[in-house]
């Protein structure tokens, strides 16, 4: 294990940035989000949840990936999407790290989404353990260890004074090697302090209001769950905004749009939400006519369809939707109502 004094974090980021872009949680205009770190930016390791999940680095909210040029009847197409250079994604939490694995199943399954794949390939993920989990956290329901984030290339713990740095993968090794001058070897005392810190985190997790939440694949038949009469009651308060979708680290629906640049066309894709009324609107009708159907789609997808296809629930318990929903409707309430324990 390596370590570095916490107040030297800017130096560390600076060093990383010398080799390529570094995405880090930075507070701008009152909210912390992952953005390309610039000298002078203070990385925010206190805020647990970035307003927008870290998936935005791998799967940007909006990405122009094609350029068309037309000359008379001739058409030429240029691919401009994806990432070309190595970069570091610093400060991801366990839940967000887990979300990458869930997104991988969608985007890296055949046919592979090359734009996502390039970002996944070229990025080195540095995860940070959560020192102070919050009330809305329920990552534990999905066996995610907030005290020991998995799925990252490097794991970092904030002890208050120091950052412990534990390499997880070869990529992490390479990054660590680049930072050799800054990171120092951790001592025996540190090695002992880490389990204590982790235990302290776990103890906090035990105390959370949702600590007892069990998330397992629903056992009922798909159609039975689909026809559950609770959907109406659950969805009645839903405003049909896309807040839950856009703050969700696992939601991955997207739209494709053309933009006329005046001299050509740019095609981009952007996040979309199945909560929006026009998501499935076709010229001759809409299979999901009311908010109930759209609401059901979102949660059936997370709790039933995705698990059917990939054997895991598409939720990481980050709690963002619990915090962000304007009317406090969220996946926990749905999990408890639909085909689950009757309250």
């Amino acid at each position, binding site marked *: 294990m390596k370590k570095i004094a916490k107040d030297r974090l800017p130096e560390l980021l600076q060093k990383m940035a010398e080799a390529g872009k570094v995405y880090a949680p930075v507070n701008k205009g009152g909210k912390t989000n992952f953005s390309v770190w610039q000298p002078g930016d203070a990385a925010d390791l206190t805020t647990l949840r970035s307003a927008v999940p870290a998936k935005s680095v791998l799967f940007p909210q909006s990405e122009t990936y094609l350029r068309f040029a037309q000359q008379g009847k001739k058409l030429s197409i240029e691919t401009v999407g994806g990432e070309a250079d190595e970069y570091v994604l610093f400060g991801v939490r366990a839940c967000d790290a887990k979300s990458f694995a869930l997104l991988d199943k969608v985007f890296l399954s055949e046919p592979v989404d090359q734009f996502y794949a390039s970002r996944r390939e070229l990025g080195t993920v540095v995860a940070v353990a959560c020192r102070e989990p919050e009330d809305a956290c329920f990552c534990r329901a999905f066996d995610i260890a907030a005290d020991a984030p998995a799925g990252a290339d490097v794991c970092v713990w904030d002890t208050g004074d120091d950052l412990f740095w534990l390499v997880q993968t070869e990529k992490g090794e390479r990054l660590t090697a680049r930072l050799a001058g800054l990171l120092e070897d951790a001592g025996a005392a540190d090695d002992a302090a880490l389990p204590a810190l982790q235990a302290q985190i776990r103890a906090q997790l035990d105390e959370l209001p949702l600590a007892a939440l069990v998330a397992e694949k629903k056992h009922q038949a798909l159609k039975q769950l689909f026809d559950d009469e609770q959907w109406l009651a659950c969805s009645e308060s839903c405003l049909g905004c896309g807040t839950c979708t856009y703050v969700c680290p696992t939601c991955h629906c997207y739209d494709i749009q053309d933009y006329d*640049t*005046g001299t050509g066309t740019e095609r981009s894709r952007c996040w979309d939400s199945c909560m929006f009324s026009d998501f499935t609107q076709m010229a001759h009708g809409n299979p999901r006519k009311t908010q109930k159907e759209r609401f059901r789609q979102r949660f059936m997808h997370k709790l039933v369809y995705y698990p059917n296809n990939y054997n895991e629930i598409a939720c990481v318990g980050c709690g963002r939707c619990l915090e962000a929903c304007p009317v406090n409707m969220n996946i926990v309430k749905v999990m408890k109502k639909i085909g689950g324990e009757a309250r």
Partner: protein
Amino acid sequence: MLLEEKTSQEQAFEPLIVAFCCNWCSYAGADLAGTSRLQYPANVKIIKVPCSCRVNPNFVLRAFQKGADGVVIAGCHPGDCHYSTGNYFTRRRFTLLMNMLDFIGIEKERFTVDWISAAEGSKFAAVMNGVLEKVHKLGPNRKMRDKRWKR
């Protein structure tokens, strides 16, 4: 002589002014300016609308997005509206919009509303010259530009 003194950068800046003119007064005023051979810069390009009250704030923002450095709405003088009350609404609507643009940091000088009658060819030219002068001083509008739009 004056032109030569300008820096090359200033010379390169050719502002684009989009002017929405009501059919009955200001468009006719622009026609009169033409008939009277009054000069105003070619940077001003006119879009005809039946009445200034047809101008949607969307159009104004759209023009700024697409690279306009200034936008003008010209209608009949209040009280002279062909549709009797149209420009009274124009007046309220764009009083608020102008203030909003100012509030988010778009210079007020980039957005002009003026009343130009069919008989005021010279006023038309004067207003356009004035707008251009102001916009020229401000320089290109970068604040609302859609960077994807290539001009």
